[in-house]
């Protein structure tokens, strides 16, 4: 670990601290329908949208109608994405003349993946998706799945803030305002900033470059095996050309991070020099991932009249973030003890550390930071392959997702995720002092806790069941690429990432099989919608309750004690559920690696 590495990490956290309040105030204005400086431009667009789509912006919805509208929108837009994928051969902006995304279970998996804000990718972008599919299918879902997340978080916050009311807002209005006010303006500016760093943005066919030094490779026959001539010698082929994939990348790159989606335009995601060419572009991307999640903590405080509560939640997130990044950075900077004859020490001329699957311009500090941030939030973009991280370095992103991605969190999803933990925290505090728990003036009762537990239980259930099936069945284990305990981690990571709607992967696992496409698609849909519905149920129930003024016996949710309790609940619920699985995967691998064992 270097002083400069820590400077970069600290600088990043300071930036996030600085953006929290302005972003939070802005979102509070947008969703309380107060005036903002963008209204002169956006208000007419908003009205036009409602006019076309038949939305009555003054209509208020009960939680059930809110949930049904959200589900309808998700189903319709998921179907459209599936159709675009299958029909891309007939659609415009396809200079590489790529055919339909196939087989159909891959198209289904991808449609589920982008609708649920997961962006799990069992395909390679530059080899599979036309520019039209990337823009109108995938990047589009990056916008709306993020907007749905924000809408849901706001609906939950309204549930806490409102008193004796049956409604929690209008889904369509929240959706449209998220897109127009929060996402679109930031993305236009951010995309251009990224282009200024070298992220490409064009619609041209892939370029052909004449290699400076052509090289020979063994030819691959039609059976997929290296070809051997009749004389027993390998048949060689000269590679003299480099095909350089292009595309409208910047416009997708920015919403990929800002909406915590994470689906790379290219296979290598944010490690690809066209997606993330400079350390500054890397900082823009990191900043974009946390901005909305951090801002929503302030929005929570603002809309519920307790800004200090927002900061208490923020503090819990920041501490867990620092714990994660410290562990990951430490593990990666230590490098791999199994490699003799190499220099892994940090010095003036190199960052050292475990550089397998990492980029030189980013080095160890920025890669560890990115891996932590992308899984604290439910982003899932990567700038280095988690599969090649050291066992403990790779365990940090895995644990982050297992904690339900509530450390700043996915846009919206992180907020309603942590509010579930808050409900549990005040419930446990209530049990300890023997009083009916209260949260910001609302009594937390049996229904709320039952729903919160449902959310807390569905998540590990779906992960552990599918992981269990995969490790005992041939159709599961045949996809493993790294033997030993690492193989278990690959599968565990896959289902954890999909259930948590993260989308990052231990990329060696062959995901494009009927089993993983189907089980993964189901996992993502369950991980998204089975969380949302109980959560909206709590919101609707809270909105209906009357306000109870705080008394001496009320557990305050604005103090460091609350921050500690909240972190404790997150760690206990998350970590204890998964500790057995973790000890058989990354922890065992770490011990064996230290003992010099190779698989």
């Amino acid at each position, binding site marked *: 670990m270097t002083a400069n590495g820590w400077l970069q990490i600290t600088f990043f956290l300071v930036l996030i601290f600085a953006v929290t309040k302005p972003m939070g105030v802005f979102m509070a204005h947008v969703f309380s329908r107060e005036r903002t400086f963008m209204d002169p431009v956006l208000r007419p667009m908003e009205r036009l949208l409602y006019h076309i789509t038949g939305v009555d912006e003054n209509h208020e919805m009960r939680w059930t109608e809110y949930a049904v509208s959200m589900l309808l929108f998700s189903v319709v837009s998921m179907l459209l994405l599936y159709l675009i994928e299958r029909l891309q051969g007939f659609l415009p902006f396809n200079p590489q003349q790529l055919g339909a995304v196939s087989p159909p279970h891959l198209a289904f998996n991808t449609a589920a993946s982008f609708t649920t804000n997961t962006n799990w990718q069992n395909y390679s972008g530059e080899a599979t998706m036309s520019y039209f599919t990337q823009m109108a299918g995938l990047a589009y879902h990056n916008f709306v799945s993020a907007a749905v997340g924000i809408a849901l978080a706001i609906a939950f916050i309204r549930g806490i803030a409102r008193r004796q009311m049956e409604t929690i807002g209008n889904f369509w209005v929240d959706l449209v305002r998220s897109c127009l006010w929060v996402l679109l303006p930031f993305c236009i500016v951010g995309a251009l900033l990224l282009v200024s760093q070298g992220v490409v943005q064009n619609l041209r066919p892939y370029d052909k*470059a004449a290699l400076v030094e052509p090289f020979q490779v063994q030819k691959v026959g039609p059976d997929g095996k290296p070809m051997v001539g009749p004389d027993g010698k390998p048949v060689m082929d000269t590679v003299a050309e480099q095909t350089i994939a*292009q595309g409208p990348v910047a416009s997708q790159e920015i919403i990929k991070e800002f909406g915590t989606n994470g689906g790379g335009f290219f296979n290598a995601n944010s490690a690809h020099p066209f997606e993330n060419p400079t350390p500054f572009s890397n900082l823009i991307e990191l900043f974009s991932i946390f901005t909305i999640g951090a801002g929503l903590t302030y929005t929570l405080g603002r809309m519920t009249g307790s800004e200090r509560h927002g900061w208490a939640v923020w503090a819990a997130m920041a501490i867990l973030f620092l714990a994660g990044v410290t562990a990951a950075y430490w593990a990666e900077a230590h490098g791999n003890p199994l490699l003799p004859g190499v220099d892994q020490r940090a010095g003036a001329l190199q960052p050292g550390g475990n*550089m397998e699957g990492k980029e030189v*311009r980013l080095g160890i500090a920025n890669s560890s930071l990115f891996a932590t941030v992308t899984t604290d939030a439910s982003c899932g973009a990567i700038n280095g392959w988690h*599969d090649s991280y050291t066992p403990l370095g790779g365990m940090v992103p895995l644990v982050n997702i297992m904690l339900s991605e509530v450390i700043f969190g996915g846009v919206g999803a992180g907020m309603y995720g942590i509010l579930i933990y808050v409900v549990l925290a005040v419930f446990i505090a209530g049990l300890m002092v023997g009083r009916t728990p209260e949260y910001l003036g609302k009594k937390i009762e049996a229904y709320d806790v039952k729903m919160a537990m449902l959310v807390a239980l569905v998540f590990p259930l779906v992960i552990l069941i599918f992981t269990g099936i995969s490790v005992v069945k041939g159709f599961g284990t045949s996809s493993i690429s790294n033997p030993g305990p690492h193989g278990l981690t690959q599968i565990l990571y896959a289902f954890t990432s999909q259930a948590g709607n993260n989308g990052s992967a231990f990329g060696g696992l062959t995901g494009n099989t009927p089993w993983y496409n189907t089980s993964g698609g189901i996992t993502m849909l369950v991980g998204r919608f089975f969380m949302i519905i109980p959560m909206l149920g709590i919101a609707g129930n809270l909105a209906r309750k009357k306000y109870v003024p705080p008394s001496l016996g009320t557990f305050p949710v604005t103090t460091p004690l609350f921050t500690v309790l909240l972190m404790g609940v997150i760690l206990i619920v998350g970590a204890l559920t998964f500790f057995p699985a973790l000890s058989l995967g990354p922890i065992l691998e770490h011990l064996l690696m230290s003992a010099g064992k190779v698989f």
Partner: protein
Amino acid sequence: MKKNVVTAVLMTLVTTVLLGIIYPLVVTGIARVLFPHKADGQLIVVNGKVLGSRLIGQAFSGPGYFHSRPSAAGNGYDASNSNGSQLGPTNRQLIDRVKGDVATLQAENPNVPVPIDLVTASASGLDPHITPAAAAFQLPRVAKVRGTNEGDLRSLVAKHTEGRQFGFLGESRVNVLELNLELDEKFPAQRHARAE
């Protein structure tokens, strides 16, 4: 319910046009005006021929060139197939690959530990950079093959070394393709070396 179904369909279509088509095309248009070279991938064009992109690495194996990092993208630096090795830290394939590369490299520079980036595959498989340490490690070999003195070569490497951005972001790095192109221009002994 029925009204919301109609709204869901219309909302999907209208927002697809706005966010999925108009937005990226507008960004493409503005980018083309403000940063035309960058928006197109910073291609290096010499005499009308595209030789590569300054952001995309290429494989080099001749002793007169600085070598890039190992690549797992297709057959190596395949910019339509970006990927890393995906090898885990305890995978024998990784350990054996690194050991083999270390043996080759130490033959030219005995007993000097090899900078880690020179024997590890990058995440994209297209990493255009090596660390200054990896450049320094290869410098004696290149100088010998090109018949130039190490001091001249060192200043050429320094010219293609980018420091941390704004003084503190990221890591120092050497652009391999640009460095090698200028090597061919300034010290063109390389043609013979390759024929050996």
